[in-house]
Every structure is written in structure tokens, then in C-alpha cells.
């Protein structure tokens, strides 16, 4: 059984979803890569920000 950490699961999810979003939402390869990277950063970044918010609220 595969048991990644929470963060590893977030990164894997963001990676796969970003690749599909990049390819399907833009037309040229350059714009696909840029949009994929943008989505990846937003996925991981928002997870980190929300995690810190929940940590601070729970204290």
C-alpha cells in the first residue's frame, strides 16, 4: 500500500492536474507550459497557505 505524506499527496495531485489543465486549456506549447506551471504553483501554494491558516486558527 502506498502511503505518501500529506504534502507529497498534494504535490502529486497538483502535478497531474496541472499537466492536464495546461494541455487542455491553452493552444501553443509555450503557453501550455506556462499555464501548467501557474496551476501547479497555485495548487501547492494555496495548500500551504490554507494549512498555515488552519494551524494558526487551531492554536
Amino acid at each position, binding site marked *: *500500500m*502506498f*502511503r505518501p505524506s500529506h504534502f507529497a*499527496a498534494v504535490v502529486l495531485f497538483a502535478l497531474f*492536474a496541472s*499537466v*492536464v489543465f495546461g494541455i*487542455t486549456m491553452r493552444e501553443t506549447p509555450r503557453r501550455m507550459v506556462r499555464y501548467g506551471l501557474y496551476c501547479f504553483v497555485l495548487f501547492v501554494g494555496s495548500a500551504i497557505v490554507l494549512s498555515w491558516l488552519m494551524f494558526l486558527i487551531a492554536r
Partner: protein
Amino acid sequence: MATTQDKKTEAGSGFVYLPLIVGWLVPGAGHFLLRKWGRGALLAASILGMFSIGIAMQGKLYAGAHDILDFLGLAGDLGNGLLYVVSRAAGWGADQVTVTTGDYGTRFLVVAGLLNVIAAVDAHNLRTGRKA
């Protein structure tokens, strides 16, 4: 020299829903059918990777719709096409989620199905000429 009208006529001939259906049944196959090898390979790797990790994490494959959430989960899982059928036949995935990673795995399986639907629609748009 091919005009815009020629391209539209070419794109509109034949069974335009074939890439959509093939892409839904097998991740990336809709793009392969249109000779978009790189895009198809990346889409297939992403969707198969997400689905495989979901199964490896003991995610739940929805079998029936007892309430609205189950129905939504089943709709997402069905987006995986033949992967869902093969996995159900082989008894992969968990019947009940008992560990935290299993809950994540369930989401991975559902989202893999939804991403596959997006990829199949993209193949359809390429086929109809709506997208380059």
C-alpha cells in the same frame, strides 16, 4: 493552399465524436487518434498515474449511488472509462475507506476520471477544429 473553409470541411467530415469516445474509454487515445502524440502521452501518463496512485492508496471505487455524494463520486469514477470497468472486474480499490490515505486515494480516482473527461473533450475540440 488550404483555405479556412477547406479546413472546416475537412474537420467536419467523418464521425466527429470518435476521438471523444475513444479518449473517454482510454486516457490519451483521443489525442493519439489525431496524431497528437506528445499531448496524448502526457495526458495518458498523468491520468493513468493519478488513477494508479489512487488504487495504490486503497481508494474506494464507487459501485452504486445510495445518496447524492455517492452519485457524484460514481459519475467521477465513470469518467475513467475502461480503467473503471477493468478495476471493478479485477476487484481493485477498497470497498470501505479505513485509512486516511484511502480517503485521499478516493479523491485521486474521482479526479482522474474528471481530468479524463476534460482530455476527451479537448480531443473532440481538436477534431472539430475548435482548437488548434
